[in-house]
């Protein structure tokens, strides 16, 4: 189910990229794809009945099957930050694109060289 959701979200993101004419929506679509991939990664680490991989007083012991896979979570942490970086650069580019081409709509942009 979680897999299905993430895959459909990827599809939605791609659909958004293909149909939208506003560049900011492209950025959002890209974010959706990023997020969907992150969900997918987390899902691959899920173990039926597993808990968050943090040793606490109530969960002091190590055992296979008791915790979910921590590695995908660590990867996602990195991936999220990368997504943020992309988003920040993209957004600042959009600010300048709007200044230079007077719009961020693909069809209304002026002075885009052929």
């Amino acid at each position, binding site marked *: 189910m979680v897999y299905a959701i993430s895959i459909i979200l990827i599809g939605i993101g791609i659909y958004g990229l293909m149909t939208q004419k506003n560049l900011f929506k492209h950025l959002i679509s890209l974010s959706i794809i990023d997020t969907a991939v992150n969900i997918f*990664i987390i899902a691959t680490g899920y173990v039926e009945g597993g808990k968050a991989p943090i040793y606490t007083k109530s969960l002091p012991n190590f055992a296979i099957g008791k915790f979910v896979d921590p590695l*995908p979570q660590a990867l996602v942490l990195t991936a999220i930050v990368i997504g943020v970086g*992309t988003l920040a650069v*993209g957004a600042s*580019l959009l600010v300048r694109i709007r200044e230079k081409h007077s719009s961020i709509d693909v069809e209304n942009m002026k002075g885009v060289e052929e």
Partner: protein
Amino acid sequence: MISLLIAIPLLLAFVSVMWKRISKSLFFLAAIVNLIILLASWFPNGVEIHAMGNWKPPFGINLVLDNASFYAVLVVNAFFFLVSLMPKFVESYGTSLMLLMAAANGFILTGDLFNSFVFMEIMTITAVTIASKRDNFYNAFKYLILGGIAGSIYLLATIFAYTATGSLNMAHVSMAAISASSLIAITTLYTIGLGVEAKLFPLNGWVSGVYGGNDLAPVILGTSVSFAALYMVGRLFGTVFHGNGAEVLYTLALITIVAGEVAALRQQNILKAFAYSSVAQAGVVVAMISKGTAKSMGLAYFHLTNDAVAKFVIFLVAGFLVYNYKNLNGVFKKHKILGASFSMATFSLIGFPLFAGFQSKLRMIMALFSMKDFLFPAVMLLATLIEVGYVVRWNVRLWFEEETQEKAETPVVASTIALILAILLVAVFLKPEIFLNGAMKMGNALADSKDYIQGVLSVVKGGM
């Protein structure tokens, strides 16, 4: 030692934000220190690994220095060094360039799939930053989106590899028994994920805009970064996945060659024209890599080295011309040295005798014929024919047309570098061993996955 290749540019990059004024000097320092480190550890002739934090593979992340990654890192750092010699060119992009250098080194050296994704993303973001120089925002944005999609797909592929093998280490993935369908899923996704950076058609829409948009981006992205990306193609499809999915790469690459050359033919912007030529050359290299033997891969990287050197000169000169002259007709009458180096580089691109490109092109064709591949040489020669058309047209236009504008100031350092590299191209024609030996070692290292696996996984403790 090899971790310093990444640590030093990174450290200096961090320092340079506090001390903006000297960022160019720091960039130069980083480049020269890296070169010294590399020269000190000349071809390792084996597999040297550096386990990060002393966590042995396949558990921790490890850097791998074998002949392949050494040669790639050497070439990449050499180009960064050349760029760092031209402070006028770097402007305020010193920090970004240092980050790009660290990322390219990391991307090449890393032995971990996810880590390579991280470095690829750093490369993309810094490349976008560099691409946005001279207000080239829309094209940079397009690159960002395309790079983002590619990054996501690369990440998906990495996760599929992780679920299939239980680890992210390349050596482990390489030796693990992966089911055929799983392997298809992984390599298909990697083809697309790497295809964007490796400029495979039709995933390379960003190239013309980014390379054609300013003077710095093509010089560094068209040489170092594209070398790093194409190295990864060889590493993944040659070493890690044992040529699985090579036929797809081969087909895409052949289409890339033709598409790149015909697109270059009609270009009126010199930077874009040679950007497309760089697309086509990437196609040649990928097709050659996809043949999968040690020899073909070695020749692919030999060709890539020649092409990168030539492209460096071409983009350097073209970038200078485009941003100093409105009308390029006959400008070389005023800049004879730049013109001579440009012409030599372009002729090397075609593969005229007397220049390095001849050695690699002829050897590739010869090797392909001995592998009984008759299609690729035909495509390559057709592409060269188209290339002759536009290369000669540009040369004739830049040398012989009536000039219209006042002379701009000649960039002394840039023309010296261009001339030296052009002479290097002639030297490589006379003595191909200059590049060929390293490239062949690289090809052998890439094709020999057994050695790679053994070298990485047998080491218990991480060494220097």
